[in-house]
């Protein structure tokens, strides 16, 4: 089996994409993910792939639209302001049902914000972001190894459902170096065959048309109902999450990505002090593990959601809990990462209140 190597998160995600059979990258530099763009510019020519630095994120996302229309594996990566610029194109891609992978290495916002890690693009990623009734599949890694695994999964899910998939990372994960075991290179001949719908030239068949457009509302509604059917299927099959020490827990922490890692430390610290706490970590942010969280929370005294934002995922947590218990929230924003100590303090306040 492959041995472990030390890699920076951003570069690891790039290598993971290459190993997943991605040979096309379009993107525009932005901190804290530029290493990923740079990595692809070095790496893709080595594997006879194509790297193109676009003139903007607006152009990048439309290049993705074009490449994905041909059924070719393709990706881009960016950080928050760039992801905002991509929203129109992503809406078109979702409507045209084109498989493609996006990585957003989130930084502090709004506006130009800063370049420190944040989780304040959760709404944008999971609730649409662009116009229209659509969803991205959203995957949230909490370690560099998991980022590698989820980038691979992202391509497979994108192909399987003909849907854009977003890997929602943050600046911490992008900049962090960790030991990683890379998967084997995907044999390009085993990549899914999209010739039944893709634009590859109409020689010997009827022309293929790719669009998110229909001027007739009845037809457009039909198209929309088609997307919704697919979304229900994704919700039924693709929910992913992880738990830590929840069986005997009296309290539950909920967090994703980098924050969940810090919460893992909080669980250990709290348990050392005799507080029985567990962790619930959504891996798919869309589809969100509503039912799974609901049952994990059953019988717990209290639940604390922690985010590197002023509270975005907590809205989904509250939907999952559906008023059955009080959901507390703690968050820091603007690129400030909560420390385990300060989260533990918050947890203790809740414990005091609940005893």
């Amino acid at each position: 089996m492959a041995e472990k190597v030390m890699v920076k998160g951003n570069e690891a995600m790039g290598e993971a994409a290459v190993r997943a059979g991605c040979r096309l990258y379009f993107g525009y530099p932005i901190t804290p993910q530029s290493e990923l763009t740079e990595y692809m510019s070095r790496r893709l020519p080595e594997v006879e792939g194509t790297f193109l630095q676009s003139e903007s994120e607006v152009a990048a996302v439309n290049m993705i639209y074009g490449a994905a229309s041909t059924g070719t594996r393709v990706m881009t990566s960016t950080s928050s302001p760039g992801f905002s610029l991509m929203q129109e194109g992503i809406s078109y891609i979702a409507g045209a049902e084109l498989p493609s992978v996006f990585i957003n290495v989130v930084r502090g916002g709004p506006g130009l914000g800063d370049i420190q890690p944040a989780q304040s693009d959760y709404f944008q990623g999971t609730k649409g972001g662009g116009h229209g009734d659509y969803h991205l599949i959203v995957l949230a890694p909490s370690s560099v190894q998991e980022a590698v695994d989820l980038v691979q999964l992202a391509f497979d899910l994108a192909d399987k459902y003909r849907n854009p998939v977003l890997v929602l990372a943050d600046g911490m994960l992008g900049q962090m170096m960790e030991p990683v075991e890379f998967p084997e290179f995907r044999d390009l001949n085993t990549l899914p065959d999209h010739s039944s719908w893709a634009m590859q030239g109409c020689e010997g068949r009827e022309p293929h048309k790719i669009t998110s457009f229909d001027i007739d509302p009845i037809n457009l509604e039909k198209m929309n109902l088609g997307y919704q059917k697919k979304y229900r299927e994704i919700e039924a099959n693709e929910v992913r999450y992880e738990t830590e020490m929840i069986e005997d827990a009296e309290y539950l922490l909920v967090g994703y990505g980098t924050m969940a890692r810090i919460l893992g430390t909080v669980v250990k610290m709290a348990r050392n002090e005799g507080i029985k706490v567990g962790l619930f970590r959504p891996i798919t942010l869309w589809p969100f593990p509503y039912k799974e969280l609901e049952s994990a929370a059953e019988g717990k005294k209290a639940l604390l959601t922690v985010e590197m934002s002023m509270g975005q995922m907590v809205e989904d947590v509250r939907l999952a809990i559906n008023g059955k218990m009080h959901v507390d929230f703690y968050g820091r924003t603007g690129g400030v990462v909560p420390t385990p100590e300060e989260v533990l303090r918050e947890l203790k306040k809740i414990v005091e209140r609940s005893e």
Partner: protein
Amino acid sequence: MAAKAIFKKPQSLSDKEFTYCPGCHHGIVHRLVAEVIDELGIQGKTLMVAPVGCSVFAYTFFDVDGTVAAHGRAPAVATGMKRAMPDKVVFTYQGDGDLAAIGTAEIIHAANRGEKITTIFINNAIYGMTGGQMAPTTLLGMKTTTSPYGREVDREGYPIHVSEVLKELSGVAYLERVAVSSPAEVRKAKQAIKKAFMTQIKGLGFSLVEVLSTCPTNWGLSPIEAINWLNENMKKEYPLGVFVDKVGELK
């Protein structure tokens, strides 16, 4: 006695009825593009990118693989396609709002990269689809629904000369401005379109044909009046001619 067909629909046009107004030049240009595709024998390997504008349905009018891009982004979409499928022939079809306003960055950079794609650019000095608003190409003094007092330099600036701007870019291998207001011009326009596609097929770089085009509906003129207006006004502002030709004589 069996009748002999002497004029028929190009194979690369679909059976879909055009959605264009009477006297609109979009339809003429569609036919020319389709004839060129037929003559070059590239129907089976052509990928087309339609814009947002009156020609938004163009991806259904051509019997080739087609899609419609977001407003102004067709050159980026075409870039993605061509990079994914370098052996295919990729073309965009765009209006002047699409290409010269919202899509300025995409066309400039695709041209400058020498992207091996072809763009058919319809300059009708107005936004047709949305009901006759000012375009960047609108002539000075011209009244539109958003320049109701006539376009003025102090307020709206000058009409933009897309071909004159693009000709300075090294990636451009073929660039011509044509009109389709007379049979002779139609023949010339077709040659230009053919050369533009040949440029791409030969891998020489970016190619674009700008077509001065009528919009009788939003100009408020009859089809004949519209042609006269184009001849008298648009050709002065936008002189016809070849700006870049790295292809040479067609065999």
